């Protein structure tokens, strides 16, 4: 924790007050977006710190309930990212997944979660710069909304 704070100060991204800190969960596929994030790190592309990544084999593995569970357990934003349609390592996992995420995206506002708190997108292994942009934009939007305090979700 101490180390993380140091690094935040070095990066100039320390939030003004730790209480306002948002928690953002990223669920990414092993083959594209995780590799892309890795590439962004290797290239030292500065990113918002609030993102915590979970790696799964394929976006096809991601049940919409993972995102709901994250919100239930206190996440302030959830980002899902995988291979671009057409580029799935397993050919079609992300095509199946896309339908599920779209439904989730449309249901969350109905459950009292602002639509800016959830996003699904595609980042390939070679798109380190895009990953940086996606993360910074998404976390920025979640930060603008601030921490959530849902009673139901």
């Amino acid at each position, binding site marked *: *924790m*101490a*180390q993380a704070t*140091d690094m935040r100060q070095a990066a100039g991204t320390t939030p003004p007050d730790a209480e306002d800190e948002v928690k953002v969960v990223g669920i990414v596929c092993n083959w594209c977006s995780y590799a892309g994030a890795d590439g962004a790190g290797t290239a030292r592309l500065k990113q918002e710190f609030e993102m915590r990544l979970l790696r799964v084999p394929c976006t096809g593995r991601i049940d919409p309930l993972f995102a709901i569970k994250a919100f239930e357990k206190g996440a302030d934003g959830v980002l899902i990212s995988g291979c671009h349609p057409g580029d799935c390592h397993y050919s079609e996992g992300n095509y199946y997944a896309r339908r599920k995420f779209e439904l989730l995206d449309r249901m969350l506002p109905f459950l009292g979660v602002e639509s800016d708190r959830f996003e699904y997108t595609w980042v390939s292994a070679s798109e380190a710069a895009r990953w940086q942009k996606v993360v910074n934009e998404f976390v920025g939007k979640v930060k603008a909304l601030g921490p959530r305090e849902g009673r139901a979700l």
Partner: protein
Amino acid sequence: MKFLAQDQLQAFLGHLAGESRVVAPVKGDDGVVLFRPWSPGTEVELDVLLAKQSAKEFVLRQSETYLRYGYAMEGEAAAQVDDSHEAKVALEDPAERKAAQDAAVTAHAVLVVEPVNDAPAQVIFGLRPCDARGFVQMDNVFGGYGGFYFDPYYNAKREATTLVAVTCRDPRSTCFCTSVQGGPAATEGADVLLTQVEGGFAVEVVTERGETLLASADLADAGQAQVLYAETVKETAEARVDAAFDLEGVREHLRANIEDSGWHDLSMRCISCGTCTYVCPNCYCFNITDEMVEGQGERIRTWDNCFNPSYTLETSGHNPRDIKSNRFRNRFSHKFWYYPEKYDSLLCSGCGRCITHCPTRIDIREVLGVMGSERTAVSATTPATSGGEA
């Protein structure tokens, strides 16, 4: 007998609330009546006979924390198990590293356990005699056998709870308390019994605890007319509860009919949910789960029910009640056979919630009427249905 005027009710509840939490049947915005913590100004709903759920939840909580646990580092070594950046840099010095390694050998995580048993004083107001009696029947289980199975969680709450019951004025067609040794004005389990009379309630003290509760309430004595009125209300109510079945021999017949194919027929329309057991003031089965996140956890007790496919599922994978009709049978056999055998009482107080709340209206009276009676020429018309799946 005392008298509580209708317009004094709020003040009376407010008085009780000064000493403890008050729980009462309250109608929600959606028209659903449930027992909820009462706050001043909230109207108590006594016109609707039964709240959707019994009041059991406030003593045998649907989820209850037994204890919290987690790991902590103990001893001087604890300081060394510091994975901060500074600590790691320090370990580059060979001498320091040696010291840290030595310390690490003696460092150990200890399990820290913190028992939890919150039992604030509470008054449950406005429950019916059948609900009050449900607690007496659960008492046998959680404190029975001379305390051998004494359950500290249940009993702490039970002891902190005072029950103010209200006589049923208009029993429903699904009420059958009189068939199971109870009645719409029965006092078993209640500490105080109120009866709605003209302009208010006739108040009867049943137990010492009830007396203590009312001691400071400063209620007037009931007049002769009110006492008579209350008697009439009770008698009328009693007469309105239909006789449902004859208890005589039910236990023996359930035992004799355990393998009867009638259980398959009766359970056909059962969807194997747990509604009947969860709304029941008597059903008490529970489950224990450890829920842990990052080394910190809680041991919780939650309600369970015999319709749950994993009920009595053994570690081997075998389940002695593996099909729906077996689990269905258990509910009725437990209430009218095993429990009576152990405690010489019934595990049913006749509120009828299991009938009105069942999604397919399975009627306990019908089940007992069929299976709790002598059955001859069994299944002449029914194909043998053994070997079913769940």
